[in-house]
């Protein structure tokens, strides 16, 4: 039992130290834990029960309480504060490929008309895609283009910059940056013919 000699004996542990341990174990646990499960995680010979009682006292009346349900223990938000967590409940879904591509074109080439977005993407852009980006607050209408038909243009918003952690639209990497950072494959013939770079 050489290994055991390395671990401090339970009698050496101050109660506050066992409290810390139980507190961390319950905080990180993926599910409520039984006394036996907590004891299993503690150094051999530690009894978690006195610590659980002390912690229940420590957390009483606080924003988070240590609750016992059946034979298990878990931290839970105080019932009177649960309304504060409502905003947490957001189901995030990844943007569709059409939407993210459209957003990228607007970001790099904006102000861009629908026809221009379609030209870069090579497919038609559905009304819903642009509407979704406008609704997300990442794209808004810009000035109308002073060409026949006066088409509407689309530009990105400050909320877009905020979401993607950009300080200005000019900070988007150009094609060379993208390749260097690993977002692109090998150089292609087409690029060797020097496609015009997006407007900075």
């Amino acid at each position, binding site marked *: 039992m050489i290994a055991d000699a390395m671990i401090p004996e339970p009698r050496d542990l101050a109660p506050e130290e066992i409290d810390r341990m139980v507190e*961390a174990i319950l905080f990180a646990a993926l599910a409520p834990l039984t006394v036996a499960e907590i004891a299993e995680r503690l150094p051999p010979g530690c009894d978690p029960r006195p610590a659980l009682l002390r912690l229940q006292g420590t957390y009483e009346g606080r924003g988070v309480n240590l609750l016992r349900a059946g034979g298990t223990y878990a931290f*839970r938000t105080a019932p009177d504060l649960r309304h504060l*967590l409502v905003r947490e*409940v957001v189901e995030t*879904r*990844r943007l569709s490929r059409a939407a993210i591509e459209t*957003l990228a074109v607007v970001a790099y080439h904006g102000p861009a008309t629908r026809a221009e977005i379609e030209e870069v993407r090579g497919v038609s852009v559905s009304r819903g895609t642009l509407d979704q980006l406008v609704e997300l607050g990442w794209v808004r209408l810009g000035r109308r283009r002073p060409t026949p038909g006066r088409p509407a243009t689309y530009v990105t918003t400050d909320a877009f910059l905020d979401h*993607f952690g950009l300080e200005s639209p000019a900070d988007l990497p150009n094609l060379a940056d993208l*390749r260097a950072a690993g977002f692109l494959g090998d150089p292609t013939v087409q690029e060797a013919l020097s*496609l015009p770079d997006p407007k900075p």
Partner: protein
Amino acid sequence: MDGTALAPAIPETLVVDVDGFEGPLDLLLTLARSQKVDLREISILALARQYLAFMERAARHRIELAADYLVMAAWLAYLKSRLLLPEEPSEEPPAEDLARDLALRLARLEAMRDAARQLLDRPRLGRDRLARGQPETAEDTRRTEFTASLHDLLSAYARLRTRDDFRPFAFDRVGVYTMEQALDRLRPLIGDWADWNDLRDWLPPGWAESGSRRRAATAATFAAALELVREGLAEIRQDADFAPIHLRARSAP
């Protein structure tokens, strides 16, 4: 300073394991560590000798080294010769500065590597420090939020810009005048050319001004002229090398 005394033998494994190095600076740093002194006090002369000896042995083992290793070798050979020869006062920058700069860069690379190691040894999230195991969310109000990361955005744009990767190669046709075009232009004219006409006067309109367009049109017109001669419709004449080329209709035999 005597660099040879300081230069220890290069372990054979170094030569064999050249693929393990991340570029010439990394190799230099490994060699420099064998001098076992503060990197900024290192003998650059000894280091240059070690590196060049390394390159020689790699060549003897027929190990192909990337171009940047060779560029570094050339630079070190140059630095070595400058450190050995008496310095011309006019030379800029002084060899001593170059040597000090190399030492600084090696020390900085080593310092950044140490920093990287220390960073990895920090109490890391998910390993040494854990987040709440059961984050709490109220189940009753659910709202769908669409999201995308910067990585998604940049990848999407990169994808768009390279979608036509495998489009067949095509020349940019702007500024090219073909022999077919020149033939179409000369064929209706040649019948009227009983006298010699300088080809230069018969370039198509708008092609005689700029250099590259004029060259393209001249070459095409000349090729078309040769074709007309081959067909027996025209005669061609040049009086001397580089003299103007003249063309006229071939008189009936």
